[in-house]
């Protein structure tokens, strides 16, 4: 029978099938960070349980870590407590940890692929909703809550209700792929399907416009699957996937043999059917800017802040939400997006903090200066990304323009560390969520691509980067 990629991965990981759609799945890789794991390790301790497969478990600290000088003690005592708890838990349970001072430290979804922990055809879980990122490699990867973190630590398995399959077909060719990025493709998808559009499903991204993307760009797409409601999003692996991974540290011994198998098998069969489908053409999409308090509240940079009724399309609940969002964001309907001024710029997060993101943003910044009154920062996703960028001299480009160049971590994506917005501050951010208070209580987030964020830093307001002649 013809099968989708999702079905193949699912079936190859079933340990037990209850027959009612629910299965016990084996977990090939478990990623752990400091915020969602302490209660899970505590649960193990209380019940005298061990970690079943420490060799398949990888931990790092990213949410809480300060991104300024690492040699200084952590000022926030509760953050320090969580970080120390993870160190203690990893040492007690024998889990490999890429700690604060490790040359491999970074955002968990950046270091997984970078270290070859992420592999095609595998199942990957982490107590973090952006685990969907790893789907870019053709891995079934999804976020779980802390109770499931404990369950996976103890059993290396997880109970799952089988989701439906949802094909996201991305067709066409962007006119200028340096100005219209993977982030813009994904925001365009989310604004059309809504933040709950993919609830109960797994996305598979297909089509020419996906094949042409680099691995890092595919990660940006898959990363935000959860923003469209899907726990996981997949891209079938191809030569780019295998080339990206080859030589990385934690790949299986028989990687080359596995590539042969993956090449043949890890794809959706020609006549396989999806439960749902959505198609988008990227030829004419513009750079995207979010205006509201969820990622579906997004418009083209050439557009205006919408009127709530216009946004809601007849749904009273959505209209009310849009009114509240405009109030929170301090925006008037009808305002051109390019007239919105920003106070802060954040280039970073598990969505957009990889080398390519920084290379592209640097093209915008080179030889220019950050607008007066704007505070801008670049936070590389990992220590590896940081070193690679520095080898290319990107740190100088950003610093010369007036950007701060920081240590790796989640930073201002979620304001659990000292990098936060003050109330009322407006930020062009390459992160994934513009929820109220996400970047700091009262902070106003506009989601954009790295080049759009960089351009906003220079101009002091949003600009259409297609006019910058980027190549």
């Amino acid at each position, binding site marked *: 029978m013809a099968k989708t990629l999702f079905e193949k991965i699912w079936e190859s990981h079933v340990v037990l099938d209850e027959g009612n759609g629910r299965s016990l799945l084996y977990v090939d890789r478990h990623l752990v960070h400091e915020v969602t794991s302490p209660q899970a390790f505590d649960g193990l301790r209380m019940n005298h349980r061990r970690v079943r497969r420490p060799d*398949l478990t990888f931990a790092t600290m990213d949410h809480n870590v300060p991104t300024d000088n690492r040699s200084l003690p952590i000022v926030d005592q509760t953050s320090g407590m969580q970080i120390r708890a993870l160190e203690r838990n990893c040492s007690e349970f024998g889990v490999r940890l890429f700690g604060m001072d490790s040359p491999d430290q970074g955002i968990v979804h950046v270091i997984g692929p970078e270290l070859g922990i992420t592999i095609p055809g595998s199942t990957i879980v982490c107590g*973090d909703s952006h685990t969907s990122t790893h789907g870019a490699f053709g891995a079934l990867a999804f976020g779980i809550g802390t109770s499931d973190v404990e369950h996976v630590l103890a059993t290396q398995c997880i109970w799952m209700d089988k989701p439906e399959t949802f094909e996201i077909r991305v067709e066409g060719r962007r006119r200028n792929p340096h100005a219209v990025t993977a982030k813009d493709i994904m925001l365009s998808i989310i604004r059309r399907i809504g933040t709950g559009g993919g609830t109960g499903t797994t996305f598979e991204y297909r089509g020419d416009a996906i094949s042409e993307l680099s691995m890092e760009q595919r990660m940006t797409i898959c990363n935000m699957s959860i923003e469209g409601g899907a726990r996981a999003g997949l891209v079938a692996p191809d030569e780019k996937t295998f080339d990206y991974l080859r030589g990385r540290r934690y790949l299986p011994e028989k990687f080359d043999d596995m590539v042969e198998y993956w090449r043949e098998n890890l794809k959706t069969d020609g006549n396989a059917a999806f439960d749902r489908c959505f198609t988008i053409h990227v030829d004419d999409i513009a750079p995207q800017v979010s205006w509201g308090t969820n990622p579906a509240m997004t418009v083209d940079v050439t557009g205006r802040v919408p009127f709530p009724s216009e946004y809601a399309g007849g749904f009273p609940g959505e209209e009310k939400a849009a009114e509240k969002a405009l109030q929170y964001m301090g925006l008037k309907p009808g305002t051109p997006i390019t007239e919105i001024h920003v106070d802060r710029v954040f280039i970073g997060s598990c969505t957009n903090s990889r080398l390519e993101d920084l290379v592209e943003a640097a093209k915008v910044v080179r030889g220019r200066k950050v607008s007066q009154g704007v505070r801008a920062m670049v936070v590389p996703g990992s220590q590896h990304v940081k070193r690679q960028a520095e080898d290319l001299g990107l740190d100088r480009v950003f610093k010369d323009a007036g950007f701060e160049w920081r240590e790796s971590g989640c930073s201002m994506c979620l304001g659990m560390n000292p990098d936060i917005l003050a109330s009322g501050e407006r930020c062009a951010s390459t992160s994934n969520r513009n929820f109220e208070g996400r970047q700091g209580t009262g902070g106003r987030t506009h989601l954009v691509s790295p080049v759009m964020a960089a351009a906003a830093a220079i101009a002091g307001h949003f600009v259409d980067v297609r006019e910058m002649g980027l190549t």
Partner: protein
Amino acid sequence: MEPFSKIRSVATPLDKVNVDTDQIVPKQFLKLVQKTGFGQYLFYDWRYGTDGAPRKDFVLNDPAFRGSKILLAGNNFGCGSSREHAVWALLDFGFRAVISTSFADIFYNNCFKNGILPVRVDEKTLRMLFENRSEVEIDLEAQTVTSGEISAHFEIESHWKKVLLEGLDDIAATLRHGEEISRYENLHKDCDPRAS
């Protein structure tokens, strides 16, 4: 985990759609290393003004709903972050059930792991519950929500129903399948990462 059978209480109406877990418990409160004590942070930024005083216009501060065990909310409740802290906060505050038209997947799972029942009803029933201010009864065994003239059946996955009714420890249950897990592991060793 406390078993769940039947509850009856006033329902707290939170008439908003797409309520994300960042609102249910804001990020500054995710740093605790226990599961308890999160109730005081539930909906913190909506519940308290910048001066720390309770906001009179927020429903959780309305004395009429004090002691409520049921939260009523708009569609796509619990979207965003996977933080189970959101569920711990609801539970610690006193909620045992949330009624909406739909829930985000991770949040939905997290509820059952902590003895909270997420109840999915149709839009019409939800609207009626919002408008009707009498007590609401949820009967898990019968899979019904009733309140005044309203009576609705709800669907729930059979295993989740059992988990809630019995207050099961699912790790202990899974560990009983140790043999099957080991068998799977022996067949799939090639996938293991290099040990370096």
